């Protein structure tokens, strides 16, 4: 699971173009500059590519923080 968290953190830093970004399970969109509804779907696309998974519409809209995202990816990877 740590591996998922690390890769996810890298993906988030990459999408928001901020290598110094501190990411943990509690991080929410409000904590990250530039994370709005528009960039959220860009992030989703990037995560889907990184992990070769596909989120449902409901998942995309209900993810509240990075922890949710990690769990969602974890569920899909089995």
């Amino acid at each position, binding site marked *: 699971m740590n591996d998922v968290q690390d890769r996810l953190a890298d993906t988030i830093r*990459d*999408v928001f*173009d901020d290598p110094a970004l501190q990411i943990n399970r509690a991080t929410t969109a409000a904590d990250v500059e530039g994370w709005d*509804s*528009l960039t959220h*779907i*860009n992030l989703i*696309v*990037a995560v889907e*590519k990184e992990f070769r998974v596909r*989120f*449902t*519409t409901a998942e*995309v*809209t209900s993810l509240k923080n990075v922890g949710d995202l990690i769990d969602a990816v974890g569920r899909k990877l089995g």
Partner: protein
Amino acid sequence: MLILRDLDYLGILKEARRLSQTKRRRSLRLAILGDCATQQFVPMLRVLFGREDYDVEIYEGNFDAIELEVLNPESGIYQFGPDIVIVLNSVQSLRDKFYERKTSSEEFQSAAISRITRTWDLLLSKHRPVILQSNFVAPFERIFGNYDQKIASSFTSIVSHLNSRIAAEARKRSSVFVNDVEALASWVGRKSWFDERMWSIAKSFCALDHLPLVSQNIVDIAMANLGKGVKCVVLDLDNTLWGGVVGDDGPHGVQIGPHGDGEPFYRLQGFLKELKNRGIILAVCSKNEHANAVLPFQENSGMILKLEDISVFVANWENKPDNIKKIAKTLNIGLDSMAFLDDNRFEREAVRTFIPEVIVPELPEDPADYVKALSELNLFETNSFSTEDAQRPELYRQEADRRIAESSAGSFEEFLQSLDMTIEVGRFTAEQLGRIAQLIQRSNQFNLTTQRHNQAQCEAMMNNVGGCLPLTASLKDRFGDHGLISIVIARIDRQSATLVLSDWLMSCRVLSRGVEEFLMNYAIEQAKGLRLETVVAVYIPTAKNAMVKEFYARFGFDKIAVHPDGKSEWMLKVEDYQPRKVFIRSEAPEAHLMESQGQRT
């Protein structure tokens, strides 16, 4: 640049963040109106127009408010004053309206088209912007299945009808252009095109991955309107316009025609002929004897292209960048309006290096894919067509109907240097004999005496250590390994202290890279090492080897005899030879070739 067409969505977003703020040469004002999300297009368009050296200022209309924007004379779009208005109508939004319709299908249809044309006409009545109107992607919902096509009121039929109407209405208005999104969707495949989650969540009319393609399509249409476009296609011949090598295979031996191995080339010619009929000038730039190069056009019935389709025909042994510059000069067109098609990577790289303005598409390895690859690049966008356009190639042909003169290469040397070529020269070895015999049988053009030694004869030369110097040369460069590409056979006559060059041949694939210069330097060095004083050589003319008629003259040999059959004899004093400048490094030890038979490292 068009050629790179790096259209990765996340990559472009990243590029957008790093987009240089320094002013570009030109700027453009764009407005985007849509019944779908338009925000995602903003970074795409900035990057892709930036690649064309344009700064763009973008006005975004409110979501799904196309009519509100254009009906209100006070609206922001009129204050903004766009050069180009991009109107995006999505099939998803149309679908919603269709499901909610309260009128007949005919009324639904005519209301939809009049909403679109009214938008154009309002925009055109205020300013005179260029309007890029998207068409509708065919829906995947097929209520009647295939029978949709039989029902005029099915959603499938309505969408298809609306697309025809959009095209027909656009034809009536010179500044309205169709942004053929349907063509893009069918190219990538609608299964991949539609990501309905993205419509639900963000009102994006396609998967985000395809937004760059839509944006590039918009840029392509805009650039055509700004005067950019390909006016002339410069064509290589051998293995580009036909299969095989005309100098070796003859005008009837090259592969061209509707069936068999020539089919891919036949198809390319058909495509090019259509371009020519549309007004794109075709030119030929080939490393060939001119007399050979024109023969397939005149004699091979499988050819779609005829000589009169070619406005400028250049076939010689000069380097291609110089020839292309001459073609541009002859036609009096800009280098940036030319595209160059050549199957040979070396030639493509040479043209890219020396004339970066010229568009040089990567051609796939398989000729069957040539037209598909070219089509994907959308190189031939235009904003107008008239009957005069169709006549243009013929006019240019008449004007350019003069032979292009020779001229010297300039910084071609630098290019050769950049190729990082290495050569391995040595006596024939047993492992090489098969390839040696093959090259001896096949080489026609760059072959001084065309003596077809068989493998056993080659083996005998290999073993004649004291009397014969049979050499092979193998070339590598940064693109790859060309293998064994040249053979030089010299006999040693100790009595008269003479080196006799009896055979000299080379694969035409490696022409004008300095291989022959390298080998001449090498041969003369060997003669010196053997304390020989003179080098004599022979040229025997054939139907195919005119290109090397003056080969020995190039190296300072004197012509000492000409026989009635055309055979000429040449001589050079070893001490008179001026070593030629070359840009190829040697890979094998050069000394002691006479002592250690067949040994190479």
